[in-house]
């Protein structure tokens, strides 16, 4: 494990057993992610990309293999709040205001009220929702709710941000706008991001590296560096280099034997 590595996955396998059937979700996963990287896990549905993320986050246990996060076990990293997580649904607590939703991780950590409030304000500034701190989740649109979820995930100053198809439920225009926001937040906070998606163009636009996965069983098929310069803007999407990278990633996905329904 190199000095810069913040996430190290060694020989991870995951099998789901139900009744007398057993499905191999992940086979022989080895993956190292360096501090400050923006890594996308890209692949068709059923390739185990979300399962891999959940193993990193200690929401699921691997059948075998080891995971190291920030030099700790995933469990220790989780209870130390070394990572923050954003899910496909915002999952905000509907009885709490935006502000109090963002405060929640700090409340769990036992941080005092005043510090909590200040930190939440800072996070809402980061996602540009300061004016909505007193609103309730249902008063916000889906995209705004997801921005609150990002603020909430970052409020305890984690070093890693896990995102499980966070923009999957949004329409195309909002998704592109939030992708831009996300890159700005990433460059502001300098966290390491692991981002699960099944959209090639989303992965290319956001990532510094794309880990291409194949299905049945879930394996890592390729690791592709995306050397497009940051900051990336809407103009990036129309460049020759962007299209070339999309084609390269698509070819890698299609080289995968069990390829299907890739968007």
């Amino acid at each position, binding site marked *: 494990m190199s000095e810069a590595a913040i996430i190290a996955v060694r020989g991870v396998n995951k099998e789901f057993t139900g009744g007398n059937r057993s499905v191999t979700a992940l086979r022989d996963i080895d993956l190292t992610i360096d501090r400050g990287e923006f890594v996308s896990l890209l692949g068709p549905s059923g390739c185990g990309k979300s399962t891999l993320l959940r193993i990193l*986050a*200690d*929401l699921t246990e691997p059948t075998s293999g080891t995971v190291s996060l920030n030099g700790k076990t995933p469990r220790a990293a*989780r*209870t*130390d*709040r070394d*990572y*923050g*997580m954003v*899910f*496909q*649904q*915002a*999952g*905000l*607590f*509907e*009885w709490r205001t935006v502000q109090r939703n963002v405060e*929640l*991780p700090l*409340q*769990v*950590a036992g941080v005092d009220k005043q510090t909590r409030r200040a930190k939440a304000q800072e996070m809402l500034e980061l996602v*540009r929702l300061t*004016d*909505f701190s007193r*609103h*309730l*989740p*249902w*008063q*916000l*649109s*889906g*995209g*705004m*709710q997801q921005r609150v979820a990002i603020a909430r995930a970052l409020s*305890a100053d984690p070093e890693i941000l*896990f995102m499980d198809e966070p923009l999957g439920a949004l329409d195309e*225009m*909002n998704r592109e*706008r939030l992708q831009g926001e996300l890159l700005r937040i990433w460059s502001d906070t300098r966290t390491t991001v692991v981002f699960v998606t099944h959209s090639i163009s989303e992965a290319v636009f956001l990532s510094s590296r794309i880990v291409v996965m194949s299905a049945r069983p879930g394996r890592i098929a390729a690791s592709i560096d995306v050397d497009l310069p940051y900051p990336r803007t809407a103009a990036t999407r129309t460049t020759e280099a962007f299209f070339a990278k999309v084609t390269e990633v698509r070819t890698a996905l299609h080289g995968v034997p069990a390829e299907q329904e890739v968007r």
Partner: protein
Amino acid sequence: MTVTNTAATAVASEAGPADPATVRRPRRGSAIGKRVWNAAGAGLVVAALAGIWEGYKALGRAFDDVLPGTRIGFPVATDDMSMPHVWSILGALVEPARRSDPTTLGSYLLGETGVTLREAFYGLLAGSSLGLLLAVLFLHLVPLSKGLMPWLVASQTVPLVAIAPMIVIWGGQAGAPPWVAVTGIAAYLAFFPVTINALRGLQSPPKVQLDFMRSVGANRRQVLGWLRVPAALPFVFAGLRLAATASVVGAIVGELSAGTGRGIGRAILTFAYYYSNGPEKLYAAVLVAAAAGIVFVQALALVERLALRHRQTR
């Protein structure tokens, strides 16, 4: 009543500097209008019921309780002994209850109702506390819920008239005053709907919220206090409504079994006994008991509205 966190229909703009004023808010003005309509509707229903009563009675009087041209009798006789006029029932409320006593029947019944409602209230309090406790226990000890649940269901299917005297006797042997036993009976009926609904509510948070709490390292107590309990509140109130009506029924039936002279249940029993002396008094007592039940449940509904005022209801 369901609470959702989707905002698919929200009109808020996606753009960064959106104006908070454009975000959907609950419309308060129309809420007041709605309440006026509801009150008018409730009044209309009462008037319609009185109208049906008097209409049926008038028909019966006109045709001597037999459908005209047939020999089919009216299901209920309409003479003043069986169906007193609405106005004589209401009139009885302002007449003295007993010959030797100037207290009106209305104020006597209200006094007795107060006794009953107090029993029902304490019963609801004790029963729902027990119900909530059981729900939390069942949530964390699944085997316990599997083993105990059939017994709880059985406890509610045993006829109350069989249980009530037992509780009264046990209470008497323990040296407790009769109203304690009556409260116990009310609690016995109240805990069950609270347990069932609260357990459902505690299990209601979606996976994403539970995953989130785990992701921030929340312990069981924090998950319970900050996620499960608040999420359960709408369910708990649904259970409390059922428990409130059940506790009033329990208190009234309990009074019938208890050797106490107080309570609306006792009053109903007494007036039923002396029915031929004044049928309108029994009807008046039943009317007051029903009204008391409505007031009791409405008071709870008010608490619910206050507790859940920030939530979106659909």
